[in-house]
């Protein structure tokens, strides 16, 4: 099974930096695993823990949250809030017995198409090794 395992990764991308970075990866014709489905939000700070947990419970094998580099958030400090919430959430996810390694927070600027591709590829490899989200099996 693991050989044909095709992960499903949800990518929450902030409009101003990471979504633009992902677009640049496209215009630069870089390769990005099709396992990633991007969801555009205005700022990484919009992504509340409930959304991330919902993604996991819905069977996402990985959840990526990408925002502007620290200090560069279009709304000043949104990404600092995102970072703090993410740190807390990881602990909660662990204590619930879910795998916090399925979550990834990363900073990608509008000019970092290459970096976006690297982040997604790396995360995709990691998720492939981890295998399917056990929640998915439970649901089936």
């Amino acid at each position: 099974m693991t050989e044909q395992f095709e992960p499903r990764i949800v990518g929450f991308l902030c409009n101003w930096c990471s979504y633009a970075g992902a677009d640049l990866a496209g215009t630069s014709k870089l390769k990005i695993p099709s396992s990633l489905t991007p969801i555009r939000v205005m700022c990484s700070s919009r992504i509340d823990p409930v959304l991330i947990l919902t993604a996991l419970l819905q069977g996402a094998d990985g959840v990526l949250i990408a925002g502007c580099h620290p200090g560069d958030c279009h709304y000043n400090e949104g990404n600092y809030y995102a970072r703090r919430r993410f740190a807390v959430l990881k602990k909660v996810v662990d204590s619930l017995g879910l795998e916090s390694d399925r979550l990834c927070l990363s900073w990608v600027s509008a000019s970092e198409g290459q970096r976006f591709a690297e982040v997604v590829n790396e995360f995709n490899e990691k998720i492939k090794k981890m295998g399917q989200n056990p929640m998915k099996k439970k649901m089936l």
Partner: protein
Amino acid sequence: MNRKIGVYICECGPNIAEKIDIDKVIEAVTSLNDIVTVERYKLLCSEAGKNYLTEQIKKHSLTHLVVAACSPRDHQLTFMEVCENAKINPYLFQLANIREQCAWVTDNKEEATKKAIRLTKAAIARVRCHSPLEKKEIESNPDILIIGGGIAGIEASLQLAHSNRKIYLVEKNSFLGGLIKNFEKKYPEMQPCSASILQKIETIKKISNIKIFTDSEVQEILGFFGNFEVKVKNKKEKDIESFNVGAVVFATGSSLFDINKNPQYGYGKFDNVLTSLEFEQMNLSKKIVLKNNKTPKSVAIIYCVGRTDKGYCSEICCMYSIKFVRYLKDNIPDIKIVNFYSDLCIPGKSHQKFYEQTQGENIDFIRAENIDITKKGEQLNISYDDETNRKKNCIVDMVILSPALEPSVDAAKLAEFTGVPLGDGDFFAEEHEKLNPVSTSTQGVFIAGCAQGPKSISDTIIQAEAVTGKILSSLIPGKKIEPEVKVSQISESFCIGCKTCLDICSYGAITFDEMNKISVVNEVICRGCGNCVAACPSGAITLKHFTFNQIYEELKEAVQ
């Protein structure tokens, strides 16, 4: 409501058509609920494409539109306009990005097609829970309040007045001109400075649409971009004047670091120890003399005073200290000058030359640390550690201290009652160091000159010009202001009045309604980041167009 969703997939010439099996995508979504029609088209953003979409919307009486094409950063607005023209609310539209983030990043056509199906389904699921949003328009006042009558405030006033704007220029002192009124010349070109600013002040006084308030302070600024209510108090006559403006400029400049905090320099204790500003004034009055009225034979200039206390380099002190060497040599050709610096900061295309041309006989530059000044007879003894860490001494007639610049004493007060945050060194914080260097997080409030950080006269003028440009292009007479529509909303019944959201919002868009004990979003100020939504412990806040449901629907399709 009976939804009628039309889905249009763009071929983008070969860009999408070659990478994605569009017919498979059509097949996959045609039978979904509410779908009236699914079509493919060559180039949707072309004039023909837009006309085609408009006709389709009318022909099928569509209520919602989904386009699968390029990035929303490219053509979201194009298609929203099509919706508007075809009389459907532009927010009942969703764009699936199957080009940049699908066709162009996926080699395998089958995989790309599957992903395109997921993205299109997600867009359809999302658009089903979209709500129409209405554009708001508010009348704006094109007048401008400028606080601070230094070169920053004067330049901004002059330029804005040239564009026929009404300006209210408020200065706390009894005279305009700020610091530079004291300088005979300005580095690096050594052109007259005080004389030229006095001339500008005369010009400004004659311009009828600039109203100048001296000896005055701003007491209150309420409202938002386009509509600020201002109260200005005359400190002498004690009367208060109120008026409305659309934008505010903070040009409150800076003051010198308080040297009394560094007693090792003997300032205030010994005669003939001056601050740089006192020396500028002495030079301007053409009487460079000691307390006993004699001409000094030797002078030491101490750079970087207070830099360690402040924790930043003030950018201009090295340069103006070098200017002092010029002043001194011009007035007293055989004077001996010793410059004690810690790091010479001479950036910029003409500054190095200025420094090199200021070298010569009886001019020493010494890198020193641990400077201590004591009295030695009529003279001053400077003890210091040189570059090799050896204790040395130097005896001079006069000492000039070049202290750091710090924000004007009133900056903190102004920051407090306007909610504009202070940043590094307690100078006003720009909205974004790189993207928006003269805006603040409060829309319609701008910063120019040393209020934003220590800088030269030319950099100050550049900022005043930038502010002018920003204001002229955003606050246009007769043009209504369109605030963001995708804003947050707080549900009265869910809010528990915990006030968490008040601190979270960087823009001060949320206030507390003491009567009802709930928080309220000011929709005109909210920028729609969604931070408060994620912070609210009781799920009381919704961000329009990025609601939980809308994102949830997208998410569900994404994991299929």
